[in-house]
């Protein structure tokens, strides 16, 4: 009769029922109770460990009405202001008519708001936080994302971790009892191990394997596909840089969702942070350079060579495992933002080179290499001759000024 998803059915009713992450739980409840110094709090951590569940459960405990927005809503500035705006600005009449404390605004999965359509979404959230009369809670998996910076600056932060396996096993046992299923403990342990601390996925897997059964044996769970949630870029980088051996790093690369080209660039970008000793850095870069050579040899055909790229990547991050010190991962690669920042200058330089090329029968490349350095010196002189040459090349004022200015 009950076809409800177990994840819904056994959602914690109150904060006490939320498993694990005791410290985070205490901090959150404290934050909810006190006259907080920040109006907003960001709960961050891996998926399925109870961030959103805690918000709903604790809200019930303390009589808050939750107004929720999550990644599935299009988060343009406009929709955010439409939905959240009124909730935060008027102190709700509900407070008087219903015996509740007030509303609590929940932005779920804020790191999911980065689609193209979401331009301005971050700004809108920051604006709402600054104007809000009511508490605001945000959740995210990865708080390091560059674009979240403005939000993080105006929030308290509470970190969630994977839930420890024994706790999840206990929960699954409880569910089985309530569902009248007799389950071998070993079967439940396999499910939990597979879930990597993600309670939600453990419950989902349990429901899948229990479908139509009264008894759950350990061989029943062998069929569940390894729940490979795949490592994101930061997890991958943290993993490979802290790995104790190339073999371990290789394993992490296998579990990663990130493509080899991004990995090559990201490892390259972070390599100097990993190795402070120049000799280690040189050794690591030597290996990374060879990984890149193999990548080059693959071209668009020899994909069997990809395996060597991964071998070499794994080697490059584990040159001196003992000397590992945690560091802040850089991502996206610094070169990307640099390219963006210099885009205007570069296109100006290119147009200048094209003009020189046309006049002097050279390619843009040789114009840049062979004429630009001298032209800079000539134009800096600001003489009559200089302006005549600029005119001859049909350089506009912007171009001339650019050449005068750069070294």
């Amino acid at each position: 009769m009950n076809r409800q998803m177990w994840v819904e059915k056994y959602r914690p009713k109150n904060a006490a029922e939320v498993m694990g992450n005791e410290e985070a739980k205490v901090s959150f409840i404290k934050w909810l109770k006190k006259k907080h110094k920040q109006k907003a709090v960001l709960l961050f951590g891996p998926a399925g460990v109870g961030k959103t569940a805690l918000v709903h459960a604790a809200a019930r405990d303390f009589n808050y009405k939750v107004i929720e927005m999550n990644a599935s809503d299009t988060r343009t500035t406009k929709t955010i202001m439409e939905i959240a705006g009124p909730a935060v600005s008027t102190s709700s009449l509900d407070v008087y008519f219903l015996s509740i404390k007030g509303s609590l605004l929940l932005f779920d999965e804020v790191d999911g708001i980065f689609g193209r359509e979401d331009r301005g979404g971050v700004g809108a959230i920051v604006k709402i936080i600054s104007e809000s009369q009511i508490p605001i809670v945000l959740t995210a998996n990865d708080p390091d994302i560059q674009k979240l910076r403005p939000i993080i600056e105006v929030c308290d932060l509470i970190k969630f971790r994977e839930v420890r396996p024994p706790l999840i096993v206990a929960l699954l046992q409880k569910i089985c009892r309530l569902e009248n299923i007799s389950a071998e403990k070993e079967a439940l342990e396999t499910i939990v191990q597979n879930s990597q601390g993600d309670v939600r996925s453990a419950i989902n897997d349990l429901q899948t394997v229990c479908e139509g059964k009264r008894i759950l044996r350990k061989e029943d769970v062998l069929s569940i596909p390894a729940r490979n949630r795949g490592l994101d870029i930061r997890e991958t980088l943290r993993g490979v840089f802290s790995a104790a051996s190339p073999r371990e790093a290789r394993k992490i690369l296998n579990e990663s969702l990130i493509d080899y080209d991004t990995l090559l660039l990201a490892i390259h970008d972070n390599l100097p942070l990993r190795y402070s000793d120049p000799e280690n850095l040189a050794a690591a870069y030597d290996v990374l350079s060879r990984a890149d050579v193999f990548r080059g040899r693959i071209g668009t055909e020899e994909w069997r060579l990809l395996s060597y790229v991964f071998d070499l990547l794994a080697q490059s991050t584990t040159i001196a495992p003992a000397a590992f010190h945690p560091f802040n991962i850089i991502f996206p690669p610094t070169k990307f933002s640099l390219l963006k920042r210099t885009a205007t200058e570069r296109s100006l330089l290119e147009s200048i080179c094209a003009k020189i090329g046309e006049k002097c029968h050279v390619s843009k490349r040789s114009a840049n290499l062979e004429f630009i350095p001298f032209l800079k010196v000539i134009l800096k002189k600001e003489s009559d001759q200089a302006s005549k040459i600029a005119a001859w090349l049909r350089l506009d004022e912007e171009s001339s000024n650019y050449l005068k200015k750069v070294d």
Partner: protein
Amino acid sequence: MSRNEGVMWAEKYRPQTLDDVVNLRDVIRSLKAFLRTPETMPHLLFAGMPGTGKTTVALCIARQLLGSSWRSFTLELNASDERGITMVRERVKSFARYGRRGLADIPYAIIILDESDQMTATAQTALRRIMETSSRFCRFILICNYSSKIIEPIQSRCAIFRFSPLQREDMVKYLMYITEKENLDLSNDAADLIAEFSEGDLRRAINILQTSATYEEGASINGKTVLRVVGQANPKQVQVMLSKALDGKFMEARDMLYDLMTTYSLSGVDIIRQIHKELYKLSYLSHEDQAELARIVGEYDFRLSQGANEDIQLSALLAQFAGFMKLKGGATSE
């Protein structure tokens, strides 16, 4: 030659006929033979370093073969600028439309394809086909730095000419010719210095001369002027980047590398070439160290040609420099 003011001298003093070319006596002699019986002229392949006269000679040939209408029937393309072989094909097609009669009194149209060694092997194969189908009404003059980078089938369809760097005396002679035309006062040591710095590249020599002349605003040019101009024009960034790497300041060196690649739009190959040059100017390195570092540069230059990403290869090279000096017990540049 008109004395119009305010132009780049490299262009103003570009020889207009094969007789004006001061070097390359053997090349010129053979080419003149072709010009006497244009029908027998095959496609041409000019190989040589920058500023040795490849484009100049190609333009002279076009001018002499095609006469007053040479501009209409000469197509100058740049393999590194034009987007792929499609462009070449399109342009050739539009020539083909003229047909034989349309070309009037001229034997054929001329296509000058500069930097053709920048083309991929695939693009070159396509080019070979185009050369074949269009040879009735087109001649190609392919220009490159290294003929070895041109695929065999194309090489075998071309008469290959090697352009060697200018001899010192030819260089000085040409500089003196310009000096006279421009009413400049160029000291002997200045002329020698220019010849030395330009390493057989006449375009570079002329650019140094003109920049020096502008710098002195008509006054006399001596050795000091030349040194100053070359110093200012030579990007110091590469040298500073090298020193930082050798001092173990890898991050700063890499930031400079990124700057060269973005703000200055230099390619990996161009940067590594400059690194190789600058290496020998670092006087605090022993000859043995310079040789060893040059070997490393060579290795990474090779990897660059094999690799997929020049950021990685060049950063890796800088890291080797830092590691090398650490091993030697620190640099002594400061």
